[in-house]
């Protein structure tokens, strides 16, 4: 079984790295081990995603599943993990005062990646919940790693809000189990497949209640408005590589849960309610994202609200549904993971160079940092959905899916809000790039190659995906759409 072996290697590598860092407490060793682990994860995740098209594969007594939607999120996670590990080598060396604790940072980093990877392959709804809970526990310490009062505040809000939200998801999970017990008897294994198979006979009222609880619960973790309040704080106060992981990997893994429950709720005769609520959350996230992006003053908070916006777009894609909607949403996940990593890396570099998180203190990026400035600006254009980058294509597909499935109102809202975000977001970049400053001297921190190379690595595929949508990818998405369409045609 090639797939089983690949999966095993992929899951063992970060876990081993996390343990090794604890035993050998040396900064250089830890960054090396983490980087190697992330490279192994990426190398195994690519064939895993390709092979997963052959149908869902189950391992270890059905507790683990490799299916296309899950493997796709695994791939996004692996990419972000690799890019962020590369970037972390350069970035964390800039934080001289943290040098003593760097081993613990890398240990937690690898453990965080491991928990996110685990959550993407869990086949049991209860174990999935536990994996998501674990991601919170590990990442809390990464959010509060810098020990500044702001970081601790962000970590506190993060753990309290997420735990409260995720407990709603637990209630929903328990109620879904109860739904299923009328069909399957009092004791059964709560895998996604058994739930889906039992769904048509479930009581629609109870299934709807359970779905709404799960949606709000995991929606808190995804950062859908109005449950997004932890997100800007956690993203802006954690070290830049962690911000990238939170945004590009963690949010997707929670979205996966919503999508799986959506399929079940749909099969339980609740299609209209399930889809309309997800679409409504998506539109609301776009609205909140747009409002806060326009009036934002912090550079990393700007990126964080952009994550809220893009999670809204992905929620819209899945909410519209149909082959087009699912394909667009999955494609958008990948593009967003690449692009948001690029944006957080750029923001981290700029933050370190200017010694400030405030947009108003950042000037003349263009003339001071021509190369990485250009990369970051290209990323900014891409993230607002400008052609010729991947996000333009995926947003267009989602818009089309909306028309096709009869959600015209949501499509118009989305289009208007995306334009507002385009203007607001790029306006901040205009002030940072082209407004002259009061000749305030900056200590140009040594931004090493480690900090710039991952930006190249993220931008290149983004550009490729924008001009060329590989046909193999399209076939993959169609298979995923069929898997997610489940019982309904």
């Amino acid at each position, binding site marked *: 079984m090639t797939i089983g072996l690949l999966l095993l290697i992929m899951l063992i590598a970060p876990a081993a790295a996390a343990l090794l860092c604890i035993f050998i407490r040396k900064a250089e060793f830890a960054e090396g081990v983490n980087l190697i682990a992330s490279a192994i994860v990426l190398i195994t995740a690519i064939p895993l995603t390709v092979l997963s098209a052959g149908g869902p594969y189950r391992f270890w007594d059905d507790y683990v599943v490799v299916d296309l939607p899950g493997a796709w999120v695994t791939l996004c996670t692996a990419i972000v993990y690799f890019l962020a590990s590369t970037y972390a080598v350069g970035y964390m060396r800039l934080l001289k005062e943290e040098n003593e604790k760097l081993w613990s940072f890398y240990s937690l980093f690898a453990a965080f990646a491991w928990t996110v990877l685990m959550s993407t392959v869990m086949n049991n709804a209860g174990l999935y*919940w536990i994996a998501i809970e674990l991601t919170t*526990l590990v990442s809390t310490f990464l959010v509060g790693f810098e020990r500044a009062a702001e970081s*601790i505040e962000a970590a*506190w809000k993060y753990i309290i809000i997420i735990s*409260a939200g995720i407990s709603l998801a637990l209630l929903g999970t*328990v109620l879904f189990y109860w739904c299923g017990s009328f069909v399957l008897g009092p004791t059964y294994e709560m895998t996604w497949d058994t739930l889906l198979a039992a769904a048509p006979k479930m009581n629609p*009222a109870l299934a709807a209640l359970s779905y709404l609880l799960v949606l709000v619960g995991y929606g808190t973790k995804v950062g859908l408005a109005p449950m997004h309040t932890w997100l800007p704080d956690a993203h802006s106060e954690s070290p830049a590589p962690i911000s990238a992981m939170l945004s590009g990997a963690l949010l997707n893994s929670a979205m996966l849960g919503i999508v799986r429950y959506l399929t079940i709720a749909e099969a339980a005769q609740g299609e209209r309610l399930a889809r309309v609520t997800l679409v409504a959350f998506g539109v609301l996230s776009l609205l909140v994202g747009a409002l806060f992006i326009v009036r*934002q003053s912090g550079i990393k908070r700007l990126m964080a609200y952009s994550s809220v916006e893009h999670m809204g777009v992905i929620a819209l894609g899945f909410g519209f549904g149909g082959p087009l909607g699912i394909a667009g949403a999955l494609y958008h996940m990948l593009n967003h993971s690449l692009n948001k990593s690029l944006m957080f890396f750029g923001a981290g570099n700029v933050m370190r160079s200017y010694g400030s998180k405030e947009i108003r203190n950042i000037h003349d990026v263009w003339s001071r940092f021509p190369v990485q400035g250009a990369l970051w600006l290209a990323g900014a254009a891409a993230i607002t959905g400008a052609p010729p980058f991947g996000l333009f294509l995926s947003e267009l597909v989602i818009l089309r899916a909306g028309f096709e499935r009869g959600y015209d109102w949501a499509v118009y809202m989305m289009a208007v809000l995306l334009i507002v975000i385009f203007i607001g977001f790029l306006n901040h970049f205009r002030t940072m790039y082209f407004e002259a400053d009061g000749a305030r001297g900056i200590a140009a921190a040594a931004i090493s190659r480690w900090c710039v190379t991952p930006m190249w690595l993220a931008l290149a595929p983004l550009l490729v995906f924008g001009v060329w949508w590989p046909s193999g990818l399209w076939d993959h998405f169609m298979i995923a759409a069929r898997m997610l369409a489940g019982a309904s045609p």
Partner: protein
Amino acid sequence: MVLTHLDPLAASVFSLMAIASLLLAFVMLGSRWLNNYLYAFAAESWIIAILSATVGFYGNYPELYFIAILTALFRGLFLPYLLWRIVRRLNVAREIHEILQPSSALVVGAFCVLFSLAVAYRVGASLGLSATVAVLALTVMLSMKLIGFLMLAVRHEALSQILALLVLENGIFLGAQILVPGMPLLIEIVILFDLLIVVACFGVLIQYLLAGAGTTSSLELKRLVG
């Protein structure tokens, strides 16, 4: 165990315990003193542990005895002890920053219960279980959830927030024992995980104190806005 053909004695015992733990949630809601919170929480956990054992006895689920022991040990003894030590060390005896007076909070809590009852009644009716203990279990489950959120919203002492989170989960345990006693593995793991959450919260809390904020009230957490 089928909810529709339940031994009447078992049904009354379950109802009694569900109502008792709801009452204890109200004790927590209506008190200003952190120690009272803690005692109420510990008592609630013990009631849930006894409930697990009774459900295990009547429904023939031997693994529920194990869960009852875990619940009593972890949630009934170990967690309250840890929290009690923190209360002593921090020297915060009572909630000072409440937004809502305890008396008003009790009234809001009562409305939460009414709302939960309405939801549970509808769901129960559509399942054909309206006259059974299931409706009561669902009511208590949902209302403890809402009361937990109410406590999170109106209390600002860090410890109250941790306790509110635990109440959120107590509600789920209680309901799960009655509604889905055949779902054991998840529950026993979750009991252990709760402990981890609380320990993680402590970690953050202590770091926060070290960072020199000098207070454990979340009202002071207002650096990050917008």
